[in-house]
Structure formats: C-alpha cells, structure tokens
C-alpha cells in the first residue's frame, strides 16, 4: 500500500486545499479514495452504502479542511471522518433497513506470495474470520476494524465514535470473545 504521508506532494496539496484550492483537494481525494472506500466497506459491510459513505466523507473533509491543523497525517484525519460518517449512515440505514450486510465483503483475497500450504491455511482462516466479522454486532465490528485492522488507539476510536475509552475497550473485549466463539464453531 502506498504511504501518502511520505509523499511531499500530499503536504503541498493539503496546504493548497486549506487555502480553498478545490482542484488540489480533488487530487487529494483521488489519491485517497480507494483507502477511504475500503475502510467504508469494512465498517458498513455493504458496497452500496460504502460508496455513499465515501462520497459524504470526502465532501465533509472538503468542508472541514480549513480546520485541519496537521496534528495527525491527512489520511488519519480523513479516516476519522470516514469512520464517523460510516457510523452515522450505517445507524440510519439500520433504522430504515434498506441495506443488507454482505458477508462476501469479508471474503479473502488470494495470497500467492507464500507457499501453497501456508497460503491455503491463511486463506481458510481469513474466510472464517471474514464470516465471523460479518456476524458481529455493528458496534463491535467497528471497534475491531478500527483497532485491530487499522491500529487506532482506544482514544482515537472513542473520539471518532463519540463513545468513552472504557466503552471502546469493553466492545473490543466482547468482540474478541465473540470472534473466538464464532471461529471455534466454524472450525
């Protein structure tokens, strides 16, 4: 995966965007849209909703870019907005019941870099893990993805989801218990 933080152009684009340069922000959005969409797909479990989340997150980022102080990297800041939008829109969608969770979202991609036996085992584990993730409650899945996949701290998660740090820890703990249960059942 390309690390945009190391890209000097990104800083330049961020600075120009903060001054209201829409073309620069468009370029930034194009650079990050795949990763934002991936995060949205994982958080919502639905590609249609994820597309909505991605677009909404990019628009919100444009609105707020003037307030971006650069304390974190631009991508981290953008992911935080995405997580927040996904949380809000998914909640709304759940109330309206218009979107269905797609377990196929979490299906593994083939990994042919390791030897076939190890790759096979990993693929199987990923498949079971994917199915287990799809089974988790939304609140638990969100915390697992942000913490274990994206490596956020509990403090960052609590800020993005407007929950307490303790709630984030409790959700992660319960999610791990449930994941282990589901993996055990699947094996």
């Amino acid at each position: 995966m390309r690390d945009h933080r190391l890209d000097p152009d990104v800083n330049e684009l961020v600075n120009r965007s903060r001054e209201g340069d829409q073309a620069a922000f468009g370029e930034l959005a194009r650079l990050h849209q795949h990763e934002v969409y991936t995060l949205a797909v994982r958080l919502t479990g639905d590609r249609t909703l994820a597309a909505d989340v991605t677009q909404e997150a990019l628009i919100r980022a444009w609105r707020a870019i003037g307030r971006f102080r650069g304390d974190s990297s631009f991508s981290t800041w953008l992911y935080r907005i995405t997580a927040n939008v996904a949380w809000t829109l998914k909640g709304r969608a759940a109330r309206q019941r218009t979107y269905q969770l797609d377990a196929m979202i979490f299906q593994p991609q083939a990994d042919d870099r390791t030897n076939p036996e190890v790759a096979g085992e990993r693929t199987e584990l990923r498949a079971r893990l994917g199915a287990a993730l799809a089974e988790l409650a939304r609140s638990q899945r969100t915390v697992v993805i942000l913490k274990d996949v994206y490596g956020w701290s509990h403090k960052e998660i609590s800020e993005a989801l407007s929950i307490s740090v303790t709630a984030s820890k409790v959700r992660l703990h319960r999610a791990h218990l449930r994941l282990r249960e589901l993996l055990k059942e699947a094996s």
Partner: protein
Amino acid sequence: MSRLAARAGLDRVPRIATCGLTRLVLHGAESGGIDLPPVLERHRRGCLSCQAATARQRRMLAELGAMRNQVEPVPYDMTAGLEYPVEVDADHPAEQRRSINRKTTTAVASAVSVAAIGAVVLARRMRSPRIRRPT
C-alpha cells in the same frame, strides 16, 4: 504472588491442564499485543491450553492486521461529488454561512414549547377562583 492473582486462582492452577484461566490470560492481551503481566506470563508458559489459546489469538490478530493491506478498488470515481463548485464552494469554511446545529435548534424549540405551556397553565391557575386572593 499478589492477592489479586491468588484470588484469581493462579497459585492453584495445574501446570498442564485445560485451563479455566485462558479467558483471563487473553483478557490481558486485548489491549494490544500479547504482553502479559509477569504473573500471567509465568502461568501461560506452563499451561498448554493458554499457549494454544494465545497462539490462536495471535493468528487472529495477525490476520486482522493483514487485512489493512488489502485495498478495495472504488467502483467509480468517488470524487465526482466534489465537482459541483457552486454547492461545494458554498460549503467551504471560508464562504459558508454559519449554520445552527440541529440539536441546538431542537433543544431551543423544546424549551420554548415547555415555557409556553407553563405560561398558559400559570395564567389559568391565576384566574382560578381557588387561588384568587380575597378582596
């Protein structure tokens, strides 16, 4: 051994057994890596069940971490929404109007309604003969 560890039964756990403390051991691992407090680590080293459970947990966390590198290509250009300069420019902080938060609006509306109802009730009671002052 600390009082907490003794209370948890760590001092009585057979070294090779199906361990009822696996959950407790793994609880220590929830906060990030698998770095456990010394007491739990000593126990884990002697307990096959805990070792197996920790290995499973490690594999699970490793697979979750590996998901980070998988990127879903966008089905279409997601930046299209930004190409309506009139709508989006108006949203930019430099140019946008100050909008009132929806929660604040609801709270103010509720407060005004309650105050109006209160005023009506008070006015009626003031006119009521029971509480009217004798002249």
